[in-house]
């Protein structure tokens, strides 16, 4: 990991008008053959304009499902059973489908992980890029096509005039991802979700894509929510982070502060496992144990089985995501002040 990004001034009550998306107690249950599973458990976070919030966690922690819940694209076996998602004046959880549709792409957009399957193989790229314009702005196909070309140019696709009539399978992976990003920012949304945008790409292309996202964020003054499992990426690109574990948010705060002084045992464990800090000759550190089976989550703290600080209180009472001593930071732990002693 390189040097952490410059610390963002801890947001205070003052800039609530910069708040673009507010998620409170979002809960998603899955109906499985062996019973109901809680994949996302009362998750709360806030995304602000001009800022990148990272949802960080390992595979299976519920971050992707949270993203799907936000844009209303959950699988049929998943239901939102609690919580609210406030985008401006609208609560997306209770809003009608028609309302959600008007907000899609105009206020809330998502960039998917796998660009090849996300693009419709039978239509040209131009037609697909033009689609948001035709749906929401009622542009004619000629006008929309012109917008598509300028979009392609903006995201750095060479020779857009000629490539606008190409098909998705004729582009490279990095180009396809740029196309997805272009489609997402077409109508200048307030909130942009990026679900593992660089996982399938080479490192060099990764850097280009992230730089593009950064520029677009400034240009459109968007709130970017970055979903990833990559600590390094979070350190480089994000301003704030919400760390997820087994469907719960366990810690939030500005990236630099969280990474330099974590307030949750899981975060500390993650950071300690980074090989950069390892000493030659010593064993690499890792977090003992495995994430819990979602079918049988223990009562109390969800991290208790692997936590060096665990005690009776942790087994009986679930710690709420509460403010800690430093303002602007929250942690779901009963004993955050003891973290530094671990």
């Amino acid at each position: 990991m390189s040097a952490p990004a410059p610390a963002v001034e801890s947001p205070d009550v003052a800039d609530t008008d910069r708040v673009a998306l507010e998620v409170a107690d979002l809960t998603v249950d899955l109906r499985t053959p062996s019973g109901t599973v809680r994949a996302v458990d009362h998750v709360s976070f806030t995304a602000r304009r001009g800022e990148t919030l990272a949802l960080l966690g390992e595979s299976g922690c519920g971050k992707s499902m949270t993203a799907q819940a936000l844009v209303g694209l959950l699988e049929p076996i998943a239901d939102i059973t609690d919580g609210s998602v406030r985008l401006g004046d609208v609560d997306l959880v209770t809003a009608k489908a028609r309302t959600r549709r008007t907000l899609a792409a105009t206020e809330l957009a998502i960039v998917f992980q796998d660009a090849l399957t996300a693009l419709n193989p039978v239509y040209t790229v131009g037609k697909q890029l033009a689609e948001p314009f035709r749906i929401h702005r009622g542009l004619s196909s000629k006008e929309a096509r012109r917008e598509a070309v300028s979009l392609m140019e903006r995201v750095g696709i060479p020779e857009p005039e000629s490539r606008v009539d190409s098909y998705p399978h004729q582009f490279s992976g990095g180009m396809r991802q740029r196309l997805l990003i272009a489609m997402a920012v077409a109508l200048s949304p307030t909130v942009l979700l990026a679900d593992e945008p660089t996982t399938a790409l080479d490192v060099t292309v990764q850097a280009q894509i992230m730089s593009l996202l950064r520029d677009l964020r400034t240009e459109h003054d968007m709130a970017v929510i970055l979903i990833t499992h990559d600590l390094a990426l979070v350190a480089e690109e994000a301003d704030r982070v919400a760390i997820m574990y087994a469907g719960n948010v366990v810690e939030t705060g500005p990236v630099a502060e969280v990474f330099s002084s974590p307030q949750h045992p899981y975060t500390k464990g993650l950071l300690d496992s980074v090989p950069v800090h390892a000493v030659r000759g010593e064993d690499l550190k890792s977090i003992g144990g495995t994430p819990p089976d979602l079918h049988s989550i223990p009562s109390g703290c969800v991290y208790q089985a692997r936590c060096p600080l665990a005690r009776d209180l942790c087994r009986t009472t679930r710690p709420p995501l509460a403010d800690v001593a430093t303002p602007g930071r929250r942690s779901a732990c009963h004993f955050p002040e003891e973290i530094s002693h671990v």
Partner: protein
Amino acid sequence: MSIDNAPRLDGAGDLYPGPDETPAVAAPVGETVPAPKPSRSKAPLWRLLLRDRMATVAAAILVFVFLVAVFGPWLVGDAATDQNLDQSNLAPFHVANGWMNILGTDPLGRSMLARLIVACRTTLLVALPAVALSCIIGSLVGMWAGYHRGWRETTAMRVADVIMSFPSLLMAVVVLYVFSPSAANIVLVLAITRIPIYLRTARAESAELQSRLFVDAARTFGARSGAVIRRHVFPILLPTLLTVATLDFCYVMLAESSLSFLGIGIQPPDISWGLMVSQGRTYLQTAWWLSFFPGLAIVITTVSATVLAAWARIATDPAQRWRLTVPRSRRSRLFPTRKVVS
């Protein structure tokens, strides 16, 4: 037979990533072993069948038809051939005529019920061998062709194309014209026209599997191609083959019935359901049951086979099996609100 029961040998089976296991993702820094998955519902196939009422009924009907074909003629004795002109063309559902004549009698006073039962045996005696023959030959050639690729594959596919490009009924008609109809000829002709179905399925599956890692692994152990096909390709192919065969059974039954109806299939004094329909045609106004019941028998059998095949297609595909086990939403069944597109 399901893939769960397929024999696994040499550890090569462990290299085969089943469709419902997620491929190992490069673990992010700080993570240990991924969580143990919740135990897959290892419901045996027959239990899965019982959950679907329609498929269970279909299976029961088919078993009944099979039993009738095997034991029926022995039970009814001569009732199918005893002519009794006093009882000619009796209407069905008049118990006064005796239980044997519950479905009426034909112009020669023979019991419809008895004739239906004997015809059942003839019909199955043509359909089942034809399906078995085409299945065995088609799948053997297909597996061999798909595994070896190259000219073997191309030739096999071209031959299959040629056979398929011509309507089977037409082929049967022409061939039976030249060679005169007999049960054996009909079986042969029908078998030949259906071989391409199995050939294509087997080839496609075999070609796809031969490029997979576990086959290479088996080869490095020095396994001969025949052994590899037998041990690895065949068990995976079998469920698909059985599904196709069930559906094909319908088609062959209908084909034989059509041929017999047209007068170039089963010849009198033998009877099949198709032939009975044809014989009853002239009596449509006076004795409707002569054509109706044999036709009904065909419909019931073929519909059951189709339903069962549709169920089997889902049940034997591990990637799709979940559809049969997911509990239904508690909401109204008549107008479920969950659409696929939402």
